[in-house]
């Protein structure tokens, strides 16, 4: 025992310090942040997760990107030279590419020198989503929208014969022809899915392309494993002086970050960009508070009460305020539970009378659900509860909508059940599917308790747990569960992205896992789908939202608030939302004498 103690002491003394600066990083400006999950693939065609998207849009170019600071979100040209020319009928988009953009040097190219990015690369990158051998995940963005894609796929996915709907007119000009107007198209061209890849690299690396990004984005990946990814600036990228006004800077809400210092300066302001993947929140927080490893992280939910002095507005406790900046952001998405309308016990039924009773049952269950307590128990009362499926983050959100559907009314729910003839004996069994885990179990227990209060027998709310989200998702996609409790992250800031979750033709296995099938709703969806943002479109969106509320299709919803903290020495205004990683090219480290001073690598004073 004594020997062990001595050995331990010797090791401690021998090591002496907490790691010290890595000699390789000496003199470099290193920005280091943490994420609570890791990307599995950096192939844009497989960048389905936020973790992958964050890296992909920094390693690759997209035609458009989001302005760094503009809220609500606004697009700007990125690889595209300007916003597209759109034909009068809204069916043809012509996009000019900026000439002179080059892919990074890589062995995939002849002589290892990256070549220029041209319009046919954009065509190739989108077509990959219609090639099953790629295992793509973004086809849904363009299928049935861009002319000829399905036919191209059916004809054998020959990249040398692109479809008419997606054509490189010349070296720098791209034509996209649509089957019907698709106002959300530009948003899809800012997503990681549409990032531009070189065919040579895909051919060269084959299945391992997802590990070896060869892009033309602002950064290049220098190492990547399950624990960390390291990027360094692509010095050949189109860096230009920052124009904060153009990026949507709002001094009233953003001046506290100190980012005004970068106005007029030319990025990159860092020499290395590191992202550590730390799933455990305690380890992530320890690493962050230590300061020399992580400079930006989210606040673990279990620490919110300790870290925050106030929640509205979000303010850090004095202990942390001196060292850290904080920003809170309502998520671009929401959590909800939708009924499976294909389930005859809760949804549609051949007998109209029973179908009407089922609607009453769903409405009563919705009334029994307590969003206020859900928010308090699991989201530290920071979430925003709203009726329907149009969340606060999109412009079509209606702040004046009645809150009845998200206000608990136990007596009313009981009355509704009694009037429709529902009793403890004839209520159907509700199988509550979830992924195994303490939190999921707590969600279930809380749900069951609320349902018991409106008269549901305890034994009729049954938990069915699955090992992985994939298995649970399979059950939803195959319509085997009566309730789908999920979260939806918006792909773009347009309510169409959430309303399509209930569009009939998107029924399971599509995104409409609830199998809601209302012809009137579908007609409205199709009408709105071709409209540009306008009061008319907003009116239709809101009408559809009201139909979902009236039909009691879903227990919805709540948008969570994300809190991000970062060391004061880092100048940035981060966002984990739709704009994802578009803030990373602007990140700067503040030394004592200005943002461009070369400091010790990420070594911060934490007195």
């Amino acid at each position: 025992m004594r020997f062990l103690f001595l050995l331990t002491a010797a090791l401690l003394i021998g090591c002496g310090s907490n790691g010290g600066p890595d000699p390789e990083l000496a003199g470099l400006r290193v920005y280091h942040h943490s994420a609570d999950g890791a990307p599995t693939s950096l192939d844009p065609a497989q960048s389905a997760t936020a973790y992958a998207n964050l890296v992909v849009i920094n390693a690759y170019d997209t035609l458009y990107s989001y302005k760094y600071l503009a809220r609500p979100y606004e697009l700007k040209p990125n690889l595209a030279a300007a916003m597209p020319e759109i034909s009068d009928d809204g069916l043809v988009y012509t996009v000019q590419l900026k000439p002179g953009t080059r892919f990074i040097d890589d062995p995939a190219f002849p002589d290892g020198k990256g070549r220029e990015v041209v319009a046919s690369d954009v065509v190739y990158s989108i077509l990959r989503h219609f090639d099953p051998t790629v295992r793509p995940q973004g086809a849904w963005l363009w299928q049935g929208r861009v002319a000829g894609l399905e036919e191209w796929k059916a004809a054998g996915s020959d990249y040398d014969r692109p479809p008419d709907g997606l054509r490189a007119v010349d070296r720098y000009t791209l034509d996209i022809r649509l089957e019907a107007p698709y106002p959300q198209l530009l948003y899809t061209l800012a997503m990681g899915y549409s990032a531009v890849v070189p065919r040579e690299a895909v051919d060269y690396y084959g299945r391992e392309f997802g590990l070896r990004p060869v892009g033309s984005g602002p950064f290049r990946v220098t190492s990547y494993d399950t624990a960390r990814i390291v990027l360094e600036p692509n010095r050949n990228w189109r860096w230009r002086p920052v124009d904060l006004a153009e990026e949507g800077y709002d001094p009233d809400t953003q001046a506290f970050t100190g980012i005004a210092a970068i106005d007029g300066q030319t990025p990159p302001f860092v020499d290395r960009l590191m992202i550590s993947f730390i799933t455990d929140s305690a380890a992530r927080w320890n690493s962050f508070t230590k300061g020399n490893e992580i400079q930006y992280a989210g606040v673990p939910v279990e620490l919110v009460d300790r870290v925050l002095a106030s929640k509205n507005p979000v303010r850090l406790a004095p202990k942390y305020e001196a060292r850290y900046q904080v920003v809170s952001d309502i998520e671009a998405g929401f959590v909800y539970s939708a009924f499976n309308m294909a389930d005859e016990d809760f949804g549609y039924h051949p007998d109209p009378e029973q179908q009407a009773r089922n609607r009453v049952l769903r409405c009563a269950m919705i009334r029994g659900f307590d969003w206020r307590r859900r928010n308090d128990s699991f989201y530290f009362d920071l979430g925003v509860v709203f009726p329907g499926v149009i969340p606060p983050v999109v412009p079509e959100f209606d702040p004046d909508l009645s809150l009845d559907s998200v206000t608990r009314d136990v007596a009313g729910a009981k009355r509704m059940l009694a009037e429709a003839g529902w009793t403890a004996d004839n209520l159907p069994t509700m199988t509550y599917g979830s992924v195994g885990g303490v939190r999921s179990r707590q969600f279930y227990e809380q749900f069951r308790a609320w349902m018991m209060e409106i008269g549901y027998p305890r034994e009729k709310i049954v938990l069915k747990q699955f090992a992985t989200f994939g298995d649970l998702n399979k059950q939803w996609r195959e319509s085997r569960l009566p309730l789908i409790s999920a979260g939806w992250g918006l792909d773009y800031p347009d309510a169409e992205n959430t309303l399509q979750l209930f569009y009939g033709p998107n029924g399971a296995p599509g995104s409409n896992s609830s199998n809601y099938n209302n012809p009137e709703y579908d007609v409205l969806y199709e009408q709105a789908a071709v409209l540009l943002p306008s009061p008319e479109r907003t009116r239709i969106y809101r009408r559809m939202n009201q139909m979902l509320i009236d039909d009691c299709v879903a227990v919805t919803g709540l948008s969570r608030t994300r809190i991000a903290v970062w060391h004061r020495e880092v100048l940035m205004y981060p966002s984990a939302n739709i704009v994802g990683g578009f803030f990373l090219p602007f990140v700067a480290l503040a030394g004592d004498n200005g943002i461009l001073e070369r400091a010790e690598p990420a070594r911060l004073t934490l007195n």
Partner: protein
Amino acid sequence: MELLQYSLRKIATGIPLVIGVTLISFLLMVYFGPDKTYELVGKNPTAEQIAEVRAELGYDQPVAVRYLDYLRELVTLDLGFSDSTGERVSAILARTIPISAAVALPGFILGNLFGVLLGLFAAFYRGVWPDKFIMAAAAIGMSISFLIVIIAFQILLSSSYGLNLFPVRGWDVHSIGDYVLYVTVPTLATVFVALGYNTRFYRSVIVEETTRDYVRTARAFGMPAGPLYYKLILKNCMIPIITRIMFSIPFVVISGSLLIESYFGIPGVGKVTYDAIVTGDQPILKAVVALTAVLLVAVQLLTDIMYRWVDPRVALK
């Protein structure tokens, strides 16, 4: 010659073991493992796209065909690509196993070494306070969750709330100094937990050995305690000690330590295996299972040979 014959025989008898293990684990993966399909399809898939993904994953093939493919992959050492990342499985293992071994070995060696020493010490003082103290400490070590130990060591030694002597996490190893820096806290946590189990096991083995006639005879002849314990008793305890150590090796080398690797952000095979289990990444799981089975057969052979080495009376038959 006898050794060669024995080795060949042992390897031959190991083949059914490998087939059995791979078959059972493969069936478990197929029938009870996660279905990867729905993690690979997009947000709004059609039935056709789902079928395409299933075909890409090979799920549409009969189980027997898939198992034969698995065996062919093992024989040809072509382990395929990860379904999640697309990386070659052989490359993943080649990259992560050395890291896991580097992380686990110091703790494994120290845990066993100190376990034997403390076991000897406790056995020597059997029934009196040093023995009781060591056994009580071992019980405490065994009772505390590994997770708690990891977090406690991390906070105590690595965080700004504690001594802040070591990195909280990561694996930036470019020199021996880096290695010591990154491996110390995981090693201390591992030793803290392993020591309890090891000490109890080795003490019981040693105590049982002290009741043998030859020990009583040696004592009667006035043999000093030191040589008696180190030269006679310890040597005669080597078979159970070797058995315990050797059969732990495959799991140390291949399986790594999920908790250690997760909490310290170490990109080892334990984390990769865990991720493969929860995401249903069958190519990785198949490789890890097969490799563990093969290593077990090898360790079994090596263990038998070592038995003979420490005790020539053991026959290789």
